[in-house]
């Protein structure tokens, strides 16, 4: 088929480049030594850094955003990108550096916020609850994601998000 017919008239047409096998030829194919993978994981698990001060800074900035959002009655959606970025940072850093419970809750709230894409009063309250829970987890040094207190905090946040979905379904008919 002629390019003009396929793509319509254009000044330039798509160009295609075949995959480059140079890396494959140099490095070969096969498997990775499982001992190397274990050693890398051990190193990652034992990497000594106190990430808590950094996490507290993220949470403090989220707190300031919520304070500001409470004073604004319109166009609150502009708060969404920085809030999502902060949640993503807390999730990433806590998860990479063994604060697994904070990571778990942050991942849940981030997924919820990315789905909802709203910033109304109820969302502000949910984020406020998330903030309090995360600070408490850091204060009590609850790191393990199977910790029963941590699990109960996660259930509370989950329930709040579920109530939000139900309320929205009633309000919008969805």
């Amino acid at each position, binding site marked *: *088929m002629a390019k003009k017919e*396929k793509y319509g008239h*254009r*000044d*330039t047409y*798509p*160009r*295609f*480049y*075949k*995959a*480059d*096998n140079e*890396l*494959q030829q*140099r*490095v*070969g*194919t*096969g*498997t*990775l*030594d499982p001992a*190397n*993978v*274990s*050693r*890398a*994981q051990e*190193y*990652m698990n034992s*990497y000594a*850094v106190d*990430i808590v001060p950094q996490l507290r800074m993220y949470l403090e900035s989220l707190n300031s955003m919520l304070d500001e959002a409470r004073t604004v009655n319109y166009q609150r959606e502009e708060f969404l990108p920085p809030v*999502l*970025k902060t949640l*993503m*940072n807390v*999730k*990433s*850093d*806590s*998860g*990479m*550096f063994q604060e697994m419970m904070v*990571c778990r809750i942050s*991942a849940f709230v*981030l*997924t919820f916020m*990315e*789905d909802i894409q709203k910033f109304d009063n109820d969302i502000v309250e949910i984020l406020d609850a998330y903030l309090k829970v995360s600070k408490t987890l850091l204060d009590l040094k609850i790191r393990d994601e199977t910790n029963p207190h941590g699990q109960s905090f996660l259930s509370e946040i989950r329930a709040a998000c579920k109530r939000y979905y139900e309320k929205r379904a009633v309000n919008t008919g969805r």
Partner: protein
Amino acid sequence: MAYKLEKLTVLVIEDSVPMLEVVANALKYLGVGNVLQARGGEAGYAMFVRERPDIIITDWEMDDVDGLELIRWIRNNLDSPKRTVPVIIMTGYAAASRVSAARDHGVTEFLVKPFTASELARRLTYVIEHPRDFVETEQFFGPDRRRRAAMDYQGPEKRGDDEYV
């Protein structure tokens, strides 16, 4: 047979020092021969031009130049030494819309934080084992975004007669 990762040069770009250190050293434990490190997008691009690494692993959200902008430079700048270099982007975002946005900027692979050594290794070997075709249009230069082969597809091959460069 095992991969000869010692023959590989990987550039890691991150603006968080602990994250940069942990990823770079994990790659060394995996057996990568030469691991280069850059703090931030601008320094990362300069190192890419200078060192011509085989693979780039970059963070998405960085303060000076973010990962997507960096990929735009790699794929389009005139001084880019290898526009088709595989780029793995690391991020805490996992929503489909984010993956799609990254793909539309020319990302090769997506690595969601937090990740394990095994997940890092898998992405690394995937880009070696599955080199991607590249597409260039007026608005886009990057890996071919069609990833899934629809085995039961019966219709016309829209790109069946495309000529490769």
